[in-house]
């Protein structure tokens, strides 16, 4: 298991190298440089060259990238080309907001989605299944920003129950968490429903019922227990995505998270900040997927035994 984790973490290095180079390359390909909006009519050609040199734009892409990677290997994510503030410091300030939003949204989404998914699967083909599926479809097809705006208009403007922008109070969490959690709920509900339906046709359930195991126990222990794997994958991917920041929700609710930081960095051609955000997000995403894999082993004895068999073969060899 440890070896597996070490390999997965080691694989992160080529992934990060690729991701960082792609970001560097894409921003370089996009028309316009960070200095283009800074050049004013009072500047001479010499002034423009001095300005470009400040941002290393007088050097080729590969040199700039090499310098970035060298600093990265020394643990330095660099400084934003716009604000000159440390990328790590900026990310560190904003990440807790994104983390809280993601976790709360996920809790809300899972708390609603698992029972809803089981309920739909248990009533498959009935009107209750159709209603649950329709709500899930609504959540999937409704754009995030639209739901966000509707919640704002109703709960913030008309009812004046919650603030329209982040103000540091618990109330400012409610609307973004609901807007974010609703889409998660929809996705997880559908996954839960289809996983339970897949498992429900298995022979071992018939055996369990024949042995007289109570239906509640059949559902929650045997059915759900065997349906967890795809649901956990879905939850893990959702968490990974939201930890990268939800730029739309962050923009709608003026949420000081990392998603908007990345969008802003790209639109300003702030390569160092954009690259730093992507590297940190990719790292987290990979770690979350690794944790998901480990959770598989923890909850599924078949996977656990597969790890054990591999280990035994290595020992014998």
């Amino acid at each position, binding site marked *: 298991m440890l070896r597996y984790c070490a390999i997965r973490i080691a694989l992160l290095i080529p992934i990060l190298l690729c991701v960082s180079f792609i970001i560097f390359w894409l921003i370089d390909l996009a028309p*316009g440089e960070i200095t283009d909006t*800074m050049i*004013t*009519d009072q500047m001479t050609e010499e002034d423009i060259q001095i300005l470009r040199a400040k941002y290393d734009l007088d050097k080729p892409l590969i040199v700039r990238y090499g310098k970035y990677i060298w600093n990265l290997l020394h643990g330095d994510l660099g400084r934003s080309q716009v604000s000159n*503030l440390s990328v790590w410091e900026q990310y560190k300030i904003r990440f807790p907001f994104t983390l809280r939003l993601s976790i709360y949204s996920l809790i809300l989404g899972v708390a609603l989605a698992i029972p809803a998914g089981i309920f739909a699967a248990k009533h498959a083909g009935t009107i209750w299944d159709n209603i649950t599926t329709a709500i899930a479809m609504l959540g999937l097809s409704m754009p995030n920003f639209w739901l966000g705006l509707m919640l*704002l208009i109703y709960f913030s403007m008309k009812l004046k129950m919650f603030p*329209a922008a982040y103000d540091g109070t618990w109330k400012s969490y409610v609307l973004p968490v609901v807007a974010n959690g609703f889409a998660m709920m929809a996705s997880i509900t559908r996954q839960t429903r289809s996983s339970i339906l897949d498992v429900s046709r298995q022979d071992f359930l018939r055996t369990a019922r024949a042995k007289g195991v109570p239906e509640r126990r059949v559902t929650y222990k045997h059915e759900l227990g065997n349906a967890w794997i795809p649901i956990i994958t879905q939850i893990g991917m959702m968490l990974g995505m939201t930890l990268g920041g939800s730029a739309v929700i962050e923009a709608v609710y003026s949420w000081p998270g990392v998603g908007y930081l990345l969008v802003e960095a790209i639109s300003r051609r702030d390569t160092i900040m954009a690259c730093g955000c992507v590297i940190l997000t990719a790292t987290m995403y990979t770690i979350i997927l690794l944790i998901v894999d480990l959770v598989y082993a923890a909850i599924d004895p078949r996977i656990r035994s597969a790890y054990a068999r591999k280990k035994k073969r290595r020992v014998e060899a």
Partner: protein
Amino acid sequence: MKKIVCMVLCVVLCVGLLAACSGGTTPTSTPAPSAKPTEAGTTPAPQEPQYHDQINLYIADKVAIIDPFNPGAQSSQQGIYSHLLYDTLVHYTVDGKYVPCLATEWSSDDNVNYNFKLREGVKYHNGETFTADDVAFTIDRAKAAQGTSMFDRLGQVDSYEVVSDYEINITLKSPNVDFIFDVSTPYASIMNRDEYDKNPDQGAWVGTGPFKMDNFVPNDSITLVANADYWGEKPITKKFVLRYIAEETARLIMLENGEFTFADLPSIYVPQYENNPNFELYSYVMDNCNYIAFNMKRPITGDKNFRMAVAYAIDRQAIVDIALDGYGKVVDSGAFWGNNTAYKNRNLKLIEQDLDKAKEYLEKSVYNGEKIELVAGMAHTIKSAEVLMAQLRAVGINAEVRKVDGPTMAAITAYDSNDCDIIVGSGVWTPLGSSCKSYFTPSNSNKACYDNPEVIELIDKAAATPDGEERQKIYYQIQEIVYDDMPYLGTFHMALYIGAQKGAGGAVYYPTNNHDYSMAYWLKQD
């Protein structure tokens, strides 16, 4: 059962669609603007005041860092917070007068050598005393800060001599009769050397202005508290929170809910606030001039007949009505010039829409059905370009809008590499005639790539001509030549609206957008 389910789903979908499409009380048609924008000015102070302690002000752009010497930190809101945090050598009033600020007197015999006598007893927020050394420091840093607004104002300084703690002589690289204006803008605020030495990242958090820095959250908010030791008129409010909100709806809800004391209003929402007893509505017309720039280097747009065809094809009022919901001012002269910019030649006749003439000129031009791109980058210029596209298509020009972001616009329309046909843009104009230099001489603001040696020579001559009448003649002549060459067509000046809570006022709205909120107040209502 299935039918019932289908019906329920249909009803749910219909309700969803109706909710999405309904605009509530928001007007979607072009309103008749009953409250026409006024020229910039001040709002009168109330007589028996009971004020709120805190004012929350919406700012229209993020502030990533407060440092006027950092080219990456330039924000369109720099002028607003600079008025609160800092002072300039000279103060420029909204009615165009220069009054003493950190400099009590100033003089120049030749517009190259300037002498400034400085105010004594002024303290920075950190307790340091303001001296000529701080002016020298500001000039030195500004000259090495290419890409900043500071550089634009003070980069023209060739040398200086600190005569005493309270006197400094400044020598420019070339004569500039408008140098006093340059040092009066908030972009030439005087910084503190000691604070920068001690704390380079936060050196600019300290100034001599009426408010002191309390808290700064990058890209979100700036919190300022009143400076009790301010040398000038003491501010009325005790605390100022300047906050950027990306989402327009959230911003308006915050104004509605009283979370913002002042907030900019998009034109479509102005009717809701006109004659609304719960709110104040302030407005002003910007000096900036929106324009259509023809790339003079391109064969089609370089053809005068084509440009004349466009001039006769456009209906400026329709552009204002659709792109700005009627809340803008169509240019009042054929000259491409700022709304209230000095020496505007109002004798040049504006070409009105005449579709027959447009087709005639198009027939005579080199145009042969090619696609003409209208490049635009800001929300209101994109809307203008879309209206313009329809108007040009009506006379047979195959126009298409190309939307780009800020850095792309700057890159593809740079003077040396401009490969666009027509740029639909918004040009910055100051109250000074010299601001025409940006558009009529080789520079990146010259989106038409207009290059007429006679005009360049006249602009240089005007910059060194102190006499008002003589300058007027030169600027009139410049406008006549440009009018004849027609590299630009001015379209409109934007009117901006600020919604405020009932009893809020005291702000000074400059047509350059560098508003001064230092004496803003919010009167408590009974």
